[in-house]
Structure formats: structure tokens, C-alpha cells
């Protein structure tokens, strides 16, 4: 009896795959650190320099705050306008991408491909490109942020669109509604809260992104990083960092509270 049970028991699957996966991961890590000269010794050697920098940053020169409040407000304004522009552009794009609303695959896949392309371009590079086109100032920054927002919001929205309840759409078809009427009555009410949430989330990201766009001359607080770091005025740099951090935390907190209320 027990011998029979022994025979019927299936053979345990081989663990070789797991061991090989682990070996490959270790090999990749080791190879990467060799190639980039990232060794532990380097880190230990550089450590005292870090303390030197921190010592120079403190105490922060608080009077510098007066100089940068305007730039910080500009940063927030850039993020606000950029995100809004991107969100508006994202609506038709997301509708074009959603497989359950747009049957034409030859239109859907190219648009999705362009969206993927947009999201692979870093926002700093986008800003640099727009600075080259429109010159220095917040305008190229706003364009860069809106393109980034378009890529992110459209992607999140079309994925949410593909997950909506099909029932109301079917009901609207049965009442004799046309394509646009179906979207207005059966799709938008299902998606609007998600869309608002995605837009707020993108705004959070864009505030952080806008803070560094000044490094390439695209307006905002980032410009002051460049100045203070250039003149080795680290006590001023620390003021900017602390100020940016508190603003970002504040906006993140308010935005996530709002998003919690929406969904």
C-alpha cells in the first residue's frame, strides 16, 4: 500500500531554474560594478568629503529665502499649467488607445507606440530640446512638463478605460445612442474620478520635475541650484533644498488626501 503511494507521487520539479536565475543576477551585479568602477573602497574614500559638504551647508542662510520665493512659486505655476495642458491633450489620446472603445488596431497601436516613445524621453532632455527651440525661460519648461504629463496621464487613463464596466455601454447602444453619446453617458462618468486622480498624481511628479528643469535654463527654482552651486555657496543651496522639500511634501500630502477622497 505504502509502496503504491510512493510510486504515484509525482516527481518534485527541479530547482535548477531558481539557482540559475540567482547566479545570473549576481553575475550581472558584479559585472556592472566592475564596469562602472563602483567599488566599496571608492565609497569609503569619498565619505569624509560628504561630511565636509554637509558642514558647509550648515547653518543654512535663511535670509536667502526672500530671493527664491518668487522662483518657487514659478515652479509650482509651471507644474500646474504643464500638467493641465497635458491632461487636456491626454483625453483624446487615451480614447484612441483604449482597445474596447477604438476597434481600429491600425490607429490604436501607432498611438500607443508614440506614447511609449514620449515616456522614454527624460523630462530634462525634453526641457533642453524646448529651450533650444523657444529660448530660456519658463515656457519651454511648461511644454516639457505637459508632454511628460500627456505621456503618463494618457497611459494610465487608457488602461483604466479598458477596465470599465461594459454594461452601461451596451445599454446606451440599446437606447439608440451614437458613438459620442455612448462615451459621454457611459464612459466619462465611469472614468472621470480616475482621470482626476491621475492628473493630481502627475502634478505631484511634475512639481518635483519642475524643481530641476532650471538646470537646463527652463525656468523655476532649478536655476538657483545652478547659481549657488557654481559659487560654492552651499549654505544657500541647503535653504533651497529644505524649501523645495517642504513644498513638495506639502503638495504630495494635499494631493494624496484629495485623491483618497476621489476614489
Amino acid at each position, binding site marked *: 500500500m505504502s509502496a503504491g503511494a510512493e510510486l504515484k507521487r509525482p516527481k518534485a520539479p527541479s530547482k535548477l531554474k531558481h539557482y540559475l536565475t540567482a547566479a545570473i543576477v549576481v553575475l550581472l551585479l558584479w559585472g556592472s560594478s566592475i564596469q562602472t568602477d563602483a567599488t566599496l573602497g571608492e565609497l569609503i574614500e569619498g565619505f569624509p568629503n560628504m561630511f565636509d559638504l554637509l558642514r558647509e551647508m550648515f547653518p543654512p542662510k535663511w535670509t536667502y529665502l526672500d530671493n527664491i520665493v518668487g522662483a518657487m512659486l514659478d515652479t509650482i505655476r509651471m507644474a500646474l499649467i504643464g500638467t493641465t495642458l497635458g491632461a487636456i491633450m491626454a483625453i483624446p489620446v487615451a480614447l484612441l488607445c483604449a482597445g474596447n472603445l477604438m476597434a481600429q488596431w491600425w490607429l490604436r497601436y501607432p498611438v500607443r507606440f508614440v506614447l511609449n516613445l514620449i515616456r522614454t524621453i527624460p523630462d530634462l532632455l525634453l526641457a533642453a530640446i524646448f529651450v533650444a527651440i523657444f529660448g530660456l525661460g519658463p515656457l519651454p519648461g511648461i511644454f516639457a512638463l505637459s508632454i511628460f504629463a500627456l505621456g503618463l496621464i494618457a497611459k494610465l487613463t487608457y488602461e483604466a478605460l479598458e477596465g470599465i*464596466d461594459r*454594461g*452601461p455601454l*451596451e*445599454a*446606451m*447602444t*440599446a*437606447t*439608440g*445612442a*451614437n458613438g*459620442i*453619446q455612448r462615451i*459621454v*453617458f*457611459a464612459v466619462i*462618468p*465611469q472614468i*472621470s*474620478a480616475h482621470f482626476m486622480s491621475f492628473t493630481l498624481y502627475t502634478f505631484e511628479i511634475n512639481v518635483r520635475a519642475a524643481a530641476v528643469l532650471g538646470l537646463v535654463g527652463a525656468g523655476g527654482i532649478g536655476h538657483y541650484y545652478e547659481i549657488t552651486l557654481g559659487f560654492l555657496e552651499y549654505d544657500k543651496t541647503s535653504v533651497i533644498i529644505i524649501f523645495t522639500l517642504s513644498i513638495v511634501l506639502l503638495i504630495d500630502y494635499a494631493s494624496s488626501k484629495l485623491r483618497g477622497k476621489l476614489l
Partner: protein
Amino acid sequence: MIELRNVSKMYPNGTKGLNQMNISFAQGEFVAIVGLSGAGKSTLLRSINRLHDITEGDILIDGQSITKAKGKQLRLIRRNIGMIFQSFNLVKRSSVLRNVLAGRVGYHSTLRTILGRFPEKDMNLAFEALDRVNIVEKAYSRADELSGGQQQRVAIARVLAQEAKIILADEPVASLDPLTTKQVMDDLKKINTELGITTIVNLHYVDLARQYATRIVGLRAGQIVFDGPVSEATDERFAEIYGRQVGKDELLGEQRV
């Protein structure tokens, strides 16, 4: 007013939903369609308003072929056919009133519906419809705040606001408890008798069919195996439809209705 001529529906996977079906429904009838799951009840209903395309034959609504209709013409035919679903198919995040007004969009231009500006007449129609199914006090509630039975009544109000001449109800009570089942079926019956709206209902429970319908149609494997008045729809005939005795699970039960 509804006429099916030699209608067949073949699904892409090869199963036959409807097989050479010929049947017509007259103005003001209350027809119950019974049959096992997969007998083609739902396919039949969804072919009538062309939520499903048929593969063969023709379907005429008031003498007009819905099978051949396109674009605007198809939408105008659909406007006269209201549909009620097992899962209600309301927009859960919208208000009850907006869900009922959704039945009116077929009457207005795209621009007008985008702006959401419904004329006074439509508002009156919507409130009247809600009043008829006794749920007018919920007009400004969100649809998902309502119970299942209430949501199905909102769906009925949507069909009423649509001023449909035909109501197709696909298992309207399948997800409701016996008490709300009675309320919803009573509403459908009342609308049928008071407004003369032709009503075709898919039902799982044969006693419910006998209680409300004036005519019963039995389906098996996409074909009509019974078509006659309630008086002829005895348990023995149903045993033929189902290919066996009527089981307990096909009866809702007298004491609960």
C-alpha cells in the same frame, strides 16, 4: 410588429445560437421565453435590437429590417426598443436621474447631449417614469447607493423615458431575491397593460412565466419547441421543453412569490 424570418446565428466558435427560427410577436403581447441556459434565449433577445448580428435570415421591426439598417436608421429603430438587463447596466457613479435621462439621448443631437441640456419635457418624462416605478424620491441619489431591486426599477424607468414601443428584458430578475422579483415583474406587467408596450422577457423560472405572461415560447438548442398561451404551458409540456421533469430549481416556489 416583430417578425423573425429564417433567423440563424452562428457564433465564431461554431456553436449555433439560433437555428432557422421563424416567429412573430404582436403589439401589446407579454411574452415569456423559457429554456435552459444556452438554449438561445439571450441570443434571440439581443438579435432583435441587433446587439448581436445574425448570420442568416431577416428581422423586421414594424416592417423595417433592422438587419439591413445602418447608422442613423439603425439608431432610430433601436430608440423604439428598450432593453432591461440582468445586471441592470446602470452607470453606478451617476445619479438615478441622469441614468434615466440617458434613455433620451437618441432623441437629441450629439452637441445637446454633450452639454447635458435636456429640455423640460425630458425632465418631466424622467420624473414620470421614476414615479411609475415608485422610486422618484431617489432621483438625486447615486445609482450604486440603491439596492438591486431599486436599480432594476431605475433601468425600467430608463426604458420608459426612452418611450420605447417594445421592451426586451434579458433575465431581469435573475439577480434579485423573491420579494423584489415580484415588484419588478409587477412593474413590467403594469407597464405592459397600462401603456400597451410589447414586452418580451427571458425567464428561468417557469412558474413566474406562467404567472405573468400571456404567451410562452420555449427554446431548446436555438429552436422553438413550444409556442402557445399560458393555459397550454403545463408541467407536462415543460417536461418536453427541458427534456425531463420540471425541477425544483426551475420553480421560484408559490409560497415565496
